[in-house]
């Protein structure tokens, strides 16, 4: 019954978490010498399905065949023994250990550990595949993309015949992504089976041979990649026709709302993170901020929100009604947010900032509003209705508004966060990585929301990783490079290559 | 030695129990249980007395591990509710709560052993009792003195065991600088001194009645300071076992215990222990109860009635100790030996002629009750609890 090439066959797999049915009678084949893209909206059960292959979850029902014989994968160890390796959606790294220690974690062997040998072997693998990892560096000292690289080296070090990657590129730079894809193609050519989960459809088109689609936990169908296109894939995921154009209405009556002048910021270790940054964010327009990770976007937004200690410079807020200027530096985050400056920041681990994983939807909505009113007691009614509204409007997949947000799938967590921030009716809306890990449909929902805000006259500051989106969505783009302003270009007609250059070199080619 | 004297005078009275003997119900409040030497001695005394007086097991209600706090008051009133007519508590800290219960239950007799406020309280149903522990301490001091003499004669006493003025160092591990302790260590010291004249004693307080490690460390500290004989007024085996260990590793040091026979933990270094036989008092009290007579407000007896004794002599005791002990004990029994004979000690170099023992106004300084008469300080005659609070010459307290 299994196809000749199929190295893994999953048959009628069902998995439930409490009342959530994450996978419902899913059948999936994974073939040798092929890269398979697993597609689906947020919460459609992709991660769950793959976790059952890698031994993290155990299916409630169904069978798994590997190389033709039925297996029972009870733990990640069993999966390793079957040659299955997986890069997880959320980092599986121990912060206080070094890269090398993380890579060799759990490997067989007794007795004394010779780190020298290990380090050499890791460096060999890195140079073979063209990755740059310092084996001795601690994880907590690493940037997101460095961590992701360690994750990749980890599976390469172990070696796997069946490799599963769950949104590996969400935090990688385009160059790193290219390197990874080259490696994956090599592996396919070596006859290994590769499964990749991603929401970036151009990656799917570029890399994979076949796509399989899940929707609401059910298997919908599969297609050969070269016979399909982004629109068709999206329709299959969502179950209806969606348009994939980002609107960009003309800004109406833009007036400076936030004026940053000569901003300089150092981190706790005294390293300069921002140096003499000046710009203005106008009402009724979307200001994009581009830059490679770690170039200071985070510090910039946090300075405006009052979460960052500033060394010098000024940040003034111009009140839309009175036109009066207010200095934001030195004000605490609370005062700043009451002025109408909202920040929704999606950190790498999604939770941990802006949301409380163990609290339910209502209580998370309350985070912004609980102080309202003079009463000693917090109002819980309006957050509840807000939660209901966000769930309905943004199509959040959740058993109910009393579910802890930690239980939701990554994409849905993000919708809650962005939805709440917008609900504050801000005059300045800053979002960072708002669509990180979001499925394409949800991403467009977010873009629409931002455009709505812009049309209401809100000054929107949008930090994003995807240059294509920045170029399509933003009215102006501020490019940061190593903490300095590399340039500010109008969004309409901007050249992707030029902006890309400016991200890596101050002022781009012109700056030479 | 005088362990377990056969008969005590008051025991004879038990021959004629009154008609309502079965109606007597005894409540016992113990601060710990049989796992501490002090309480074990009380338990043993009560059981023995009950057997002697003919009180059945089910006429005694035991309450163990009663704290020195409201728990004592709760327990006392609970015992009243259970129909107890005589209630005994064994720890000093119980006293205030016993007194409180006594003031609220006039038809029940409350006895606070080792307490001191019965007379002052003027409550007819509130009593105190204590033995003459200082007598057995004196006798144990004599045992120690004999040993010391032997050590001196054998040349074991080295330079480090002597003070600059040539006196030989001995040590004492005490609980608190409380009159009961002061009275006890002074008696011990005078006992040693009656054999070897030139001794000086250092007292180290542990600030606890029972703490094996603190007692051991205090003993270690005294040993390292050169003390060659140690005694104790604290309840654990800490000090004797420290002496035994020191003796094993070559430091000559011998010890006198308290309450418990220390030979099992310190077979070579323990000489003897001073002990109380509480059954003497309990027999007296139970007989009063059976006959419906009033118990004495302050009861205090010693060697003469067998309420005090020392435990079996250890193998290390000096030759002739037996005879000497017998002689001293006889003198104590017939009253020819006065332990606190004012001619035998001085305070700040001068003889003591007057001492007010009883405090009536709560400032903790005696203001009535002259204890010295005819050159003798009479301990435990004005009330049952000891009141000898003088710091005599030759004894140094490490802490005030």
């Amino acid at each position, binding site marked *: 019954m299994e196809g000749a090439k199929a190295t893994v066959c999953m048959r009628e797999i069902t998995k439930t978490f409490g009342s959530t049915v994450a996978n419902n009678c899913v059948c999936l084949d994974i073939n040798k010498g092929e890269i398979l893209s697993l597609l689906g909206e947020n919460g459609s059960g992709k991660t769950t399905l793959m976790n059952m292959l890698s031994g993290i979850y155990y299916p409630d029902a169904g069978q798994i065949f590997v190389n033709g014989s039925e297996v029972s994968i009870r733990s990640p160890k069993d999966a390793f023994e079957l040659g299955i390796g997986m890069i997880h959606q959320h980092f599986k790294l121990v*912060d206080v250990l070094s890269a090398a220690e993380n890579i060799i974690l759990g490997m067989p062997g007794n007795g004394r550990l010779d780190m020298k040998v290990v380090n050499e072997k890791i460096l060999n693998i890195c140079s073979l595949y063209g990755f740059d990892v310092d084996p001795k560096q601690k994880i907590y000292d690493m940037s997101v993309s460095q961590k992701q690289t360690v994750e990749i080296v980890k599976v390469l070090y172990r070696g796997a015949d069946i490799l599963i990657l769950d949104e590996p590129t969400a935090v990688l730079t385009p160059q790193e992504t290219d390197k990874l894809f080259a490696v994956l193609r090599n592996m396919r050519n070596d006859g290994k089976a590769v499964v990749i989960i991603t929401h970036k459809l151009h990656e799917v088109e570029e890399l994979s041979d076949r796509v399989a689609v899940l929707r609401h936990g059910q298997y919908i169908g599969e297609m050969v990649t070269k016979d399909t296109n982004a629109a068709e894939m999206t329709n299959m995921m969502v179950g209806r026709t969606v348009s994939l154009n980002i609107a960009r209405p003309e800004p109406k009556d833009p007036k400076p709302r936030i004026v940053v002048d000569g901003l300089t910021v150092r981190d706790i270790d005294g390293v300069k993170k921002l140096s003499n940054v000046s710009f203005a964010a106008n009402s009724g327009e979307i200001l994009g901020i581009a830059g490679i990770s770690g170039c200071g976007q985070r510090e910039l937004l946090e300075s405006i929100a009052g979460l960052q200690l500033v060394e010098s410079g000024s940040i003034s807020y111009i009140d839309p009604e009175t036109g009066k200027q207010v200095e934001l530096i030195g004000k605490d985050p609370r005062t700043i947010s009451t002025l109408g400056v909202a920040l929704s920041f999606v950190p790498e681990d999604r939770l941990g900032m802006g949301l409380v994983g163990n609290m339910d939807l209502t209580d998370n909505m309350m985070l912004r509003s609980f102080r309202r009113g003079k009463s000693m007691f917090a109002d819980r009614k309006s957050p509840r209705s807000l939660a209901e509204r966000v769930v309905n409007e943004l199509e959040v997949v959740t058993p109910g508004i009393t579910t802890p947000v930690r239980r939701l799938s990554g994409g849905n967590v993000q919708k809650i966060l962005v939805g709440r921030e917008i609900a504050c009716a801000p005059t300045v809306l800053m979002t960072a990585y708002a669509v990180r890990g979001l499925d394409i449909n949800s991403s467009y929902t977010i873009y629409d929301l931002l455009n709505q805000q812009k049309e209401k006259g809100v000054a929107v500051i949008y930090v994003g990783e995807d240059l294509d989106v920045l170029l399509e969505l933003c009215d102006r783009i501020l490019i940061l490079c190593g903490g300095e302003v590399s340039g500010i270009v109008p969004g309409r007609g901007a050249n992707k290559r030029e902006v890309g250059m400016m991200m890596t070199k101050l002022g781009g080619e012109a700056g030479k | 030695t005088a362990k377990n004297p056969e008969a005590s005078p008051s025991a004879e009275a038990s021959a004629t129990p009154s008609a309502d003997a079965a109606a007597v119900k005894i409540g016992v409040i113990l601060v710990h249980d049989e796992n501490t030497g002090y309480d074990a001695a009380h338990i043993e005394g009560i059981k023995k007395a009950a057997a002697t007086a003919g009180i059945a097991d089910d006429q005694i209600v035991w309450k163990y591990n009663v704290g020195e706090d409201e728990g004592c008051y709760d327990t006392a009133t609970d015992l009243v509710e259970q129909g107890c007519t005589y209630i005994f508590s064994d720890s000093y800290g119980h006293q205030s709560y016993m007194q409180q219960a006594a003031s609220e239950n006039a038809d029940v007799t409350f006895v606070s052993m080792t307490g001191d406020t019965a007379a002052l309280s003027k409550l007819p149903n509130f009593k105190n009792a204590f033995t003459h522990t200082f007598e057995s301490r004196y006798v144990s001091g004599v045992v120690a003195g004999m040993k010391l003499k032997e050590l001196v004669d054998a040349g074991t006493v080295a330079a480090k065991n002597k003070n600059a003025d040539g006196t030989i160092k001995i040590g004492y591990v005490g609980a608190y600088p409380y009159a009961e302790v002061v009275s006890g260590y002074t008696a011990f010291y005078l006992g040693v001194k009656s054999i070897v004249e030139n001794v000086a004693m250092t007292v180290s307080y542990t600030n606890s009645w029972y703490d094996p490690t603190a007692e051991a460390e205090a003993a270690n500290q005294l*040993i390292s300071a050169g003390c060659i004989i140690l005694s104790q007024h604290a309840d654990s085996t800490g000090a004797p076992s420290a002496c035994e260990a020191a003796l094993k590793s070559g430091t000559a040091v011998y010890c006198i215990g308290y309450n418990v026979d220390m030979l099992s*933990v310190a077979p070579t270094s323990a000489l003897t222990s001073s002990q109380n036989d509480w059954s003497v008092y309990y027999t007296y009290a139970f007989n009063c109860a059976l006959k419906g007579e009033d118990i004495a407000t302050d009861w205090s007896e010693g060697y003469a009635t067998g309420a005090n004794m020392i435990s079996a002599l250890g193998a290390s005791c000096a030759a002739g100790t037996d005879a000497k002990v017998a002689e001293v004990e006889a003198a104590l029994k017939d009253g020819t030996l006065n332990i606190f004979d004012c001619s035998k000690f001085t305070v700040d170099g001068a003889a003591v002629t007057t001492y007010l023992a009883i405090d009536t106004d709560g400032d903790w300084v005696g203001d009535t009750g002259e204890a010295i008469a005819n050159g003798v300080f009479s301990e435990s005659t004005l009330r049952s609890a000891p009141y000898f609070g003088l710091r005599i010459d030759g004894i140094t307290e490490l802490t005030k």
Partner: protein
Amino acid sequence: MTQILSLLQAAMVFGTVILFGAIGEIMTEKSGNLNLGVPGIMYLGGIAGLAGAFWYQTNVATPNAMIGLLIALVCALVAAGLGGLIYSFLTITLRANQNVTGLTLTIFGSGVANLFGGAMNKMAGGVGQISVGITSDAFRDTLPFLSNVGVFSGLGFMVYLAIILAFLASYFLNRTRKGLNLRAVGENPATADAAGINVTRYKYLSTCIGAAISGLGGLYYVMDYIKGTWSTDGGIEKLGWLAVALVIFARWKPIQAIWGSYLFGALFWLFLYIPGLTRSSQEIFKMLPYVVTIIVLIVVSLRKNRENQPPANLGMAYFREER
């Protein structure tokens, strides 16, 4: 001079009790289990060792010191390990709250130990009559080549055993694969699990072995410190808490715990050697070890350092399908 030696010895003896407790607890905590049952486990180790030796000595006509010593050691290790097993089953398999389970284990251990200790006192014919002198002497025998060397005279072999264990634990944790895996389990069990490490097995083993080591602290207290007797005064419990404190003081490093424990011991008994204190000022002086600990704690927290932190997942249960 002799006074200083005497203080140092007091410090080392005292320190050794809490050092065992702390090494065991470090092993346990490295697996992410916060076992507040250390005092209870030390109680179990102490009473089992004593009971074993007592049983042996009362049932054999001419007891052999070495056999008594071995029996005591084995009994202590097994009983304390069983205490760890109760804790492990509840917190690892049944995922019960670690704090409450630990505190309960302390109540349970002290109850069991004092119950049997009391019973043994009775069987031996009264307080202070439990005599396991022969065994206890074996525990307190000085090493032959050290018997005359200043502070080392009068220290039993377990003092050195504690030091060796500290070095072994440090080597294991920092230099071996299994140690690395164990640290990963305590830091991030989900990661360790995904890496194919059997989280449950590591947690069980390190908690039970850690408990067994902690139990040696109780054994040392009973056999060496109070010389083969039993008292129901709660002495072990207090030292057990200090052992828990020492773990944090030593920042989860076994070797740091060595000097930490001796320092603690020295500060603890210093008051006996300071002349001229009054009884009440002595009580104030006895605050010293605790106040010094607090000061060290503050100073350490001023120098923020990633390496000085507790295992990141300490105190949390792990369930693979949880997220």
